[in-house]
């Protein structure tokens, strides 16, 4: 059971992120929601490769006789983190531009494009 906790945490992360996206009215909070989903998915990926009691998969001065965790999900997670940083930076800088032109971050007012 305790081994499944990370999965539950990942789902909670994603759920919170979705809640934020659906119901929070501030553009910065929406950016936070996206980051929450990202973290949830990253946690899910990294948990896939985890083995109980194993060490990091690096040979330099590794303790002998220990099993290592699977490195592939870590590589995937790292890539996804890098992409996440680009996404977050872009969302935040566009939010700044919106604030510059609209003078507000409220989603109910940032909707000149509709219909």
């Amino acid at each position, binding site marked *: 059971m305790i081994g499944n906790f990370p999965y539950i945490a990942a789902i909670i992360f994603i759920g919170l992120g979705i809640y934020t996206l659906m119901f929070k009215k501030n553009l910065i909070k929406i950016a936070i929601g996206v980051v929450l989903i990202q973290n949830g998915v990253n946690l899910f990926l990294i948990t896939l490769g985890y083995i109980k009691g194993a060490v*990091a998969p*690096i040979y*330099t*001065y*590794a303790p002998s006789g220990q099993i290592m965790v699977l490195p592939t999900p870590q590589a995937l997670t790292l890539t996804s983190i890098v992409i996440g*940083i680009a996404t977050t930076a872009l969302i935040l*800088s566009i939010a700044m531009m919106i604030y*510059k032109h609209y003078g507000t971050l409220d989603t109910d007012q940032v909707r000149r494009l509709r219909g």
Partner: protein
Amino acid sequence: MKQMSRIVRTVTNLIYGFIIIFGFYVILHGHLTPGGGFQGGAIVASAFALLLISYGALNTEKLLKKDLLSILESGGLTMFIGTAFLGLGITFFYNFLANSGSWFGDAAVIGINPGNMNTGGVIPLMNIAVGLEVLSALGVIVLVMASGAEFTKKKENS
């Protein structure tokens, strides 16, 4: 952003160089220890961010030139893709330096070892390229965002 108190600035002066050196250490040892180009670059960029908070955007822009950083960014990216192109004799991204005896060309040891810097082939080269790219890109991002924030604040006050 105004500059912060003298205490903060002094501490920044003290640790700023060490953070950058640690970042470059992580970049250069990317093929041996945890970390690599991205992580090391992010550490160096965090030093820039520290500078930005403690000294304010206007003072930092005197030290860190956006132009220079964006040249460095394009240069890093070109170096990365250029290294990939060099492997084109066999395949794109082929590690032509590994086990060749030249630069970074020692045979890698499989199993637990103390770590040899001179292994990895093109991987250290690509780590350096990515490191340059990330440190300059993140540096540009924090600088531009800081000056943008300055702009909006000015607009708010007026």
